[in-house]
């Protein structure tokens, strides 16, 4: 008898080996573009993305090593109200949208692991419907004295995927037409080059999440190293874009104060603080449900184990630790950026 274990070494499929395409998504230009881009991928036609995305018993981290792409048409909910776990920057009309589910990166602390049943990436191809809903949102906003503030890279890293799905570009062009819109595109990538040919606009804030390099290397899998993120920040500033720096999440790793203190020093040495629009700070926090689900899947990362407390539906570090971290960051950043440009989640 052959021993099944001796049957050579076998491998996994690489990312995007398979494209699952909703029948109704087939004719969209983005679908055609992605099919060309992944011409060797196996195409599987589906009726509804949920039949693939929401299968029971999928393993998020196993799928992360072989992510599939699902192309779908979003039928409703083109805008969401901003969550309590994010800064609203004093905007009354604070919204986000979900152009994609999931992310090409795989940060140990990412709440998507606790939020979605699958790590496969869903891309919604009907961009026009989002634009229509956004125009309506702008028109009906509650405070016409303020812009309609919209995060388009909220539950994902849109710029990291720009070479496949050029949505940042499309939204920047859209924002040019909409004087009352203010968009944030947040990233841990160095993919600024993918949009660098576009003239800057004050209606789009390019935001980079910055972490100490040891943290990025160990816990933010697939993301650009700090050095490259800072190069991208510098290019964007030089080109005239409004840039936001996000020190969020600040993680209670060993020697966190030394690591994050050094990070601030490195940033201000390489980036002119006066050229930065604003800065955000926030200690690590998650919704209780996501946290519990993440812990069941991630029994390998110190970031999810240790001292946590629950406040309403949010899980975060104990108050004293959190306040210490936030105050530390505020002080260090305040020395360079001034208090008024720092937005902190406390």
């Amino acid at each position, binding site marked *: 008898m*052959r021993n*099944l274990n001796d*049957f050579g070494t*076998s*491998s996994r499929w690489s990312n995007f080996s398979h494209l699952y395409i909703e029948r109704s998504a087939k004719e969209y230009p983005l679908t055609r573009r992605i099919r060309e881009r992944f011409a060797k991928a196996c195409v599987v036609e589906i009726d509804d993305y949920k039949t693939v995305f929401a*299968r029971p018993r999928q393993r998020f981290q196993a799928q992360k090593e072989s992510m599939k792409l699902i192309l779908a048409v979003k039928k409703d909910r083109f805008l969401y109200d901003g969550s309590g776990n994010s800064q609203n920057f004093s905007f009354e009309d604070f919204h986000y949208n979900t152009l994609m589910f999931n992310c090409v990166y795989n940060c140990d602390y990412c709440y998507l692991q606790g939020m979605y049943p699958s790590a496969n990436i869903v891309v919604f191809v009907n961009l026009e419907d989002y634009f229509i809903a956004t125009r309506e949102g702008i028109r009906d906003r509650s405070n016409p004295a303020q812009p309609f503030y919209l995060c388009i890279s909220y539950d994902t890293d849109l710029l990291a995927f720009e070479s496949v799905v050029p949505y940042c570009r499309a939204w920047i062009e859209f924002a040019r037409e909409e004087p009352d819109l203010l968009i944030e595109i947040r990233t841990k990538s160095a993919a600024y080059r993918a949009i660098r040919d576009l003239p800057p606009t004050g209606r789009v804030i390019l935001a980079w999440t910055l972490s100490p390099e040891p943290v990025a290397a160990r816990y933010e899998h697939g993301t650009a190293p700090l050095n490259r993120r800072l190069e991208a920040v510098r290019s964007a500033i030089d080109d005239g874009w409004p840039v936001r720096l996000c020190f969020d999440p600040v993680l209670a790793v060993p020697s966190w104060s030394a690591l994050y203190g050094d990070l601030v020093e490195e940033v201000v040495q390489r980036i002119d603080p006066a050229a930065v629009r604003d800065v955000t700070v926030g200690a690590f926090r998650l919704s209780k449900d996501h946290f519990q689900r993440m812990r069941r899947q991630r029994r390998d990362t*110190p970031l999810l184990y240790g001292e946590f407390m629950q406040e309403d539906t949010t899980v975060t570090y104990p108050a004293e630790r959190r306040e210490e971290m936030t105050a530390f960051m505020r002080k260090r950043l305040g020395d360079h950026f001034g208090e008024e440009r720092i937005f902190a989640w406390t």
Partner: protein
Amino acid sequence: MPVLLAIALHAEARPVIERFRLKQDASYDLPVFRRDDVWLTVTGTGSMKSAIATASLLARVERDEDTVLFNLGIAGHTQQAADGPVSVGDRFLAHKITERSTGRSFFPDLLARTPLAESVVTTVERPLERADGGTVEPGLADMEAAGFYQAAATFLPPHRIGCVKVVSDHLETRRLDKNRVGELIAGALDEFEAAIAAYRSVRDGRQDVLTGADLQLVEDIRDRLRLTVSRHRMLSDLARSYKLHNGSDLPDLTRFTHVSVKTRQEGDAQFERLRDILSVE
């Protein structure tokens, strides 16, 4: 690490039984053949029979998180015989299984890379006639896959379920003799084995920092201290936290497997002691 196989016909199963030198296990109501960690059940023809036998096998076998389950069998192909690339004897791994009677489709999760080409499989209630070939999605037509898959997916993650079909005809409704069926399956066995090996090589996710011995120790302490389910979970997480933050093995906790507690308060006191020892701050 069990490998489970659900095969409709004896004629299809025979080459597999020979290849793996499986022996019939008469302690089952259904025909079950096994050797070491390979189990094969002959399900009978049709979706319902396949589902019942598959579920019954899954319920009887002690599964672990590496268990894989395959359906293997012959199927018709919608392409006309001389009209395209697919020939009798070609084999495919299903990437979409549609149940014609309900219109529902199911998707095995294709994480493992196998040597097999892939295809849609439509499960029909009775053999599909050539004239009706256009009523299903181009690809394979069988009579079991949808039932098999639905039963399997009740127990297993979708990347541990595979469905392999060997083309036996192009929807001509002539009966195949048993020897021919056996030959077709035998010709697919190298690739089938490779597919099983590929499936088995896929881990379910990140490995728990707690080893089997650690988990056993935590369970022993739970039993000794009569911990509630939530306390047991807390203790496991404290142990994880200790290992992850200290980068070391657990401290010696064996004394907690010898204590005896009579009241809840005593259990609580011991638990607090454990918490102090495992605390990382």
